[in-house]
């Protein structure tokens, strides 16, 4: 059987896993060698990193939000009442 280092399916799984835990050094080396030869897995890895950055950064940047907007007074009062009723 061929080593997993030559299989995109196995490598893609290892790339994903490397984002969730520290892989053993030799696994990381196999991944590196593979992506030197395979542009699709290289792309895959870059895109997973883009997904992570997008999910973590963009989503919380307050600058991206329109600061002129706010809850209406009515909604505000309603929510306060509901919270008060629920926490009592």
């Amino acid at each position, binding site marked *: 059987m061929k080593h997993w280092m030559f*299989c*995109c*399916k*196995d490598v*893609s*799984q290892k790339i*994903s*896993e490397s*984002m*969730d*835990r520290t892989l053993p050094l030799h696994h990381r080396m196999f991944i590196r060698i593979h992506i030197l030869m395979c542009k*699709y*897995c290289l*792309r*895959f890895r*870059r*895109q*997973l990193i*883009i*997904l*992570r*950055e*997008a*999910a*973590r*950064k*963009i*989503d*919380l940047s*307050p600058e*991206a*939000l*329109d*600061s002129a*907007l*706010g*809850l*209406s007074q009515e*909604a*505000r009062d*309603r*929510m*306060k009442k*509901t*919270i*008060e009723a*629920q*926490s009592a």
Partner: protein
Amino acid sequence: MVENKDAHPSKLPDPETWVDQYGDYLYRFALSRIKDPGLAEELVQETFLAALNSRKNFKGRSSARTWLIAILKHKIIDQYRKKKPEESREDMEIFPDGVDHMFDDKGSWIERPGKWNTNPMKAYEQREFMDVFYRCLSDLPKRLSKAFVMREMEGQSTEEICKNLDITATNCWVILYRARMHLRHCLDVNWIAQ
């Protein structure tokens, strides 16, 4: 995720002050994803109620605002999911969790990852990217999207996710792998190809 910078865990303020402190921010956030103001308000209210009921789970590792936003995000994804017609929701149930269909017998890519020329970090592309991103996320089977949100949006460790979802570490890595595979593929098709 905005981590708490100092070593002391942050405290959750009194619920009675939540609306004044976080209401507008949560509302703006919801409105940036859900265009309907009435619905955005509803989601904010639901978020406050959910937060009230799970106050005990707040561990103070992130700020209260970050914690509330995390709850709101789950509500938004549920909302996107609800918007889908009945038919596609059925499809979702038979949607294969696995990734076998993405590779051939030898384990090579069948649909090769496409080139992403555009960078989602650029401000002018954010809104469009996030829209497709949320739609793709809501297309995932629920447990996959849940794990992905915990890991990538909330920055939880796999240990925490295992505990929360009551699964083994190996299972957790597999679920995250599948979530990333499907999400990446969905973005390849729906965002990049536009």
